[in-house]
């Protein structure tokens, strides 16, 4: 037999094994690297500033609402200047954070502010002294209806104070809010135009004045579900629910003598106030009306390197949905 190649030519198998293992480990290193990157990617939060676009829009909405309240109370023409100042200061503040903010007033809708803010409060009578009277006719929208009163000024359950909104032309279609006091609880009952009744009872401590925010459904800081959601089906309801959205309604007060304090609301359109029962100047003790801004439309833009968000927001503070 021929002499085969001697044993030493075994072909360095060990080296090849080591080499293959080496290749495998390097490939594995690549995989580990992307695994680590996956974990890094997983722990990244949202895109920088993406949720701030909406929170900042909410802040702009509230700032413009503050400016509108000021304009309606003191100087109606000041809204434009206020919004520009808010826009200027906001963008300089946010520029530091790499955000570009742009706020500008586009348009306003006129309305009328009806109020009786005699100091120390007075009965809710008309300027002519009527206890049951009409405040406004043909109203399309109402916002920020607030009644400020005290326990001592509230009627007992006998003849509660009533605020009504009935559909123009068909008075039977009426939304009524009745307020009275029952052993230290403020009770509010709402009868909507489509026949639903719901009631809420809020215990208000102390003898001081407190606010019943009718459109927001809050009494002295406590939520009153009767004003924001009817008891049975749980569907939401608000001032003048049940009156078809197309038609207008009249606002009336019944039994105004029974309650004392102040109230104010803003209605639109501007001419809907009742000239016989409301005065124009804010003479003490008598309900009056002044021109007011019902709604402001504002252009809002929020930009960062990754987010672009431009919208037009309508600011109507205190308007139920």
């Amino acid at each position, binding site marked *: 037999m021929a002499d085969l190649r*001697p*044993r*030493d030519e075994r072909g360095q198998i*060990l080296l090849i094994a*080591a080499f293959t*293992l080496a290749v495998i*480990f390097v490939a*594995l290193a690549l995989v*580990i690297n992307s*695994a*680590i990157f*996956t*974990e890094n990617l*997983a*722990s990244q*939060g*949202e895109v920088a500033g993406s*949720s701030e676009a*909406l*929170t900042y*829009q*909410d802040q702009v*909405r509230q700032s413009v609402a503050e400016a509108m309240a000021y304009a309606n109370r003191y100087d109606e023409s000041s809204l434009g200047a206020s919004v520009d100042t808010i826009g200027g200061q906001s963008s300089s503040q946010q520029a530091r954070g790499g955000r570009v903010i742009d706020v500008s007033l586009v348009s306003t809708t006129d309305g009328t502010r009806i109020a009786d803010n005699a100091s120390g409060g007075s009965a809710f009578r008309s300027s002519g002294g009527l206890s049951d009277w009409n405040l406004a006719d043909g109203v399309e929208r109402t916002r920020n209806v607030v009644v400020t009163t005290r326990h001592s000024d509230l009627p007992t359950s006998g003849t509660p104070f009533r605020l009504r909104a009935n559909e123009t032309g068909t008075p039977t279609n009426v939304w009524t809010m009745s307020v009275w006091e029952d052993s230290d609880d403020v009770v509010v009952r709402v009868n909507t135009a489509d026949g639903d009744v719901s009631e*809420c009872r809020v215990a208000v401590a102390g003898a001081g004045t407190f606010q019943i925010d009718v459109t927001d459904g*809050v009494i002295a*800081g*406590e*939520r009153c*579900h009767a004003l924001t*959601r009817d008891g049975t089906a*749980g*569907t*939401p309801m608000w001032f003048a629910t049940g009156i078809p959205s197309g038609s207008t309604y009249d606002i009336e007060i019944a039994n105004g003598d029974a309650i004392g304090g102040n109230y104010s609301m803003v209605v639109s359109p501007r001419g809907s106030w009742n000239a016989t029962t409301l005065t124009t100047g804010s003479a003490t003790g008598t309900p009056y009306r002044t021109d007011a801004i019902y709604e402001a439309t504002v252009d809002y833009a929020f930009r960062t390197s990754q987010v672009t968000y431009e919208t037009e*927001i309508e600011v109507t503070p205190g308007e139920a949905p």
Partner: protein
Amino acid sequence: MATGPPRPPGGRAHTDDSRAQTTLDFAIGVSLFLSVMLFVFAFVPGILQPFELSGEQDTVLSERIASDLSQGTLGDPSEPYVLETHCTVAFFDEGSPSPSRCDYEGSTIQERLTVEDHRNVNVSLRGTLSGADADLLCWDATSQRIVERGSGDCNPDAGDDDRLLTGGETPPQSNDATVSSRRVVGIQQTNVTMRVVVW
């Protein structure tokens, strides 16, 4: 120099036993290689273990659910972090269909969050409404108000539709592979903490 046995050139006298590589050398070589091989095989899975990826996306999922619930679904996107009471309470009412007015559909938590049904999720509202420490919250149907579980008026199994504000399976206490995200939200004029746990 004494000459050893004559070494014929290319002579056959080189028997294999005179290979000069004693079995000892071979033994050392192979043992060294094998020991390194064993070390490597023992060591490599060790470095791999922390990167055995499982459930990495749970972190992002719980953040997504928490942001979606707190900034849009249970409230209004124009007013983030403020929840609307009715839809929030109805969200935790598993089994009954979702109210059409609310921004979610389906009857189980998974359907309402649009995650796959096998995914384990728990959403709960906690807060300190009275007293010192936070507790699970509960909807008291009689007073239409949100109260702490510990307070007297919360009796979820007493027939009147009081309800504990927690939905989905209960998260396992021991299992550490859960990811939880928290958001502070406002509801009924107060602040509570919404906690989303995914595992």
